[in-house]
């Protein structure tokens, strides 16, 4: 008998194929799940982590801005204006060279010292002073206020450089003749200026042929600081005045403080530009 064998194998293959086909759904669902994890869930987790970081920064930003707003709200504008006037007396926004010279001349006449020579390193007089622009509304990168480059003080005084770095000065060099007591009085008067000044490089020697008279030479550094060009970032924290700084400002506004004198006006107009006065 000749039995047909091929159809039996075909039936067997079909049965195995149908059995394998039953695995397509579960295996396919596992693959799809993995694809969802890989292409949807994992990127979203990364986005969530980035958002969390952003939110932390935003929370800090909001917190600092709210604190700043509450500090600013608590400030008394009138008091601040008074303090600014005092601060301008301490550290004017321009050089005020002639005010310093006038103050030196007045102090010298009051102390009874003879000014042999007054030498001022004035530099540019009509330098432009910028005013404060509007505060940026959007948070921005903090900007460093421009430091005036004219006659910078940094390094001028070796062991006190850090205190003098952020500002500029007008230097007045003096040569004087006086007795010792008058010189001390003059130096005390200089220190009593409302403007911040420093006396350096004092050299004293007896005046030849003049008993009890001393020849001295020294320099007076009068400091100034231009107004900042920008306020910086809106997020930059507000530093309030310390007690010492407030006391300093109060001291400047007291009547006994020696205020910067106004330079007197002089008559103008000449017929001949070269005739000596």
């Amino acid at each position, binding site marked *: 008998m000749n039995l047909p064998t091929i159809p039996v194998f075909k039936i067997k293959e079909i049965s195995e194929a149908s*059995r394998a086909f039953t*695995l397509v*759904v*579960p295996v396919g*669902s*596992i693959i799809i*799940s993995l694809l*969802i994890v890989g292409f*949807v*869930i994992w990127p979203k987790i990364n*986005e969530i982590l980035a*958002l969390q970081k952003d*939110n932390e920064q*935003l929370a800090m930003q*909001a917190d600092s*801005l*709210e604190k*700043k*707003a509450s500090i*600013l709200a608590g400030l008394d*504008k009138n008091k*601040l204006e008074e*303090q600014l006037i*005092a*601060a301008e007396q*301490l*550290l004017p926004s321009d050089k005020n060279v002639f005010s310093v010279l006038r103050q030196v001349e007045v102090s010298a006449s009051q102390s009874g010292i003879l000014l042999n020579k007054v030498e001022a390193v004035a530099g540019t007089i009509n330098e432009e002073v910028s005013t*404060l622009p509007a*505060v940026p509304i*959007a948070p921005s990168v903090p900007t460093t*206020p421009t430091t005036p480059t004219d006659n910078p003080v940094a390094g001028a*005084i*070796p*062991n*006190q450089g*850090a*205190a*003098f770095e*952020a*500002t500029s000065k007008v230097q007045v060099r003096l040569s004087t003749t006086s007795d010792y007591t008058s010189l*001390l009085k003059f*130096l005390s008067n200089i*220190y009593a200026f409302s403007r*911040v000044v*420093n*006396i*350096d*490089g*004092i*050299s*004293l*020697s007896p005046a030849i042929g003049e008993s009890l008279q001393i020849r001295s030479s020294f320099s007076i550094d009068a*400091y100034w600081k231009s107004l900042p060009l920008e*306020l910086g970032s*809106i997020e930059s924290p507000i530093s*309030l*005045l*310390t007690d010492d*700084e407030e006391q*300093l400002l109060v001291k400047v506004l007291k009547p006994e403080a020696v205020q910067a004198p106004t330079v007197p006006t002089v008559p103008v107009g000449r017929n001949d530009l070269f005739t000596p006065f």
Partner: protein
Amino acid sequence: MAEINLIPQESKKSDDFEKLRGKIVIVSIIVLVLTALAAIVTLAFFAYRVSQREDLLSKVQEASATVNSYKENEELIVVTKDKSSISSRILGARLDMVNVFTTLAQIIPKNVYFTDFKITSADIQISGRAGSSAEIAGLMSALLSTEGARIASNVSINSLVSDETGAYTFGLVAKVK
């Protein structure tokens, strides 16, 4: 006695396959459920973070607007603080020359006087005359005393010469405190 496998080979294969299929189905269901849960939780958390961000952004904008409304106060305090802190630092660091002279006048011996005096913020150079060596010793101990140490340190005598009267001419340098 050896066991006799009475189950046909094909039937056994079929049973094994069914068992494997069952396991795969269970695993796939678990994976699907976990994936669905993870997706829901992730999306919910993402939505929460997004809404939190929006809240924070509006909070920042509100606070910025408030800060901007106090712009004048900010300008005043920034400039005043800048100037007063610099002034305070300069005044704190500056050397009070009057104090140096006053202290020296109080502590030096009576028979000592200066012929040349130079002082900078870094050092003091003094030349002078003293009545005797004892006066020089008195000057040195005065400069090394508590009062003297407040104005000078590292005192060094550069020259010390006497004449026929017994008076000494001296030159000294010291660092300013």
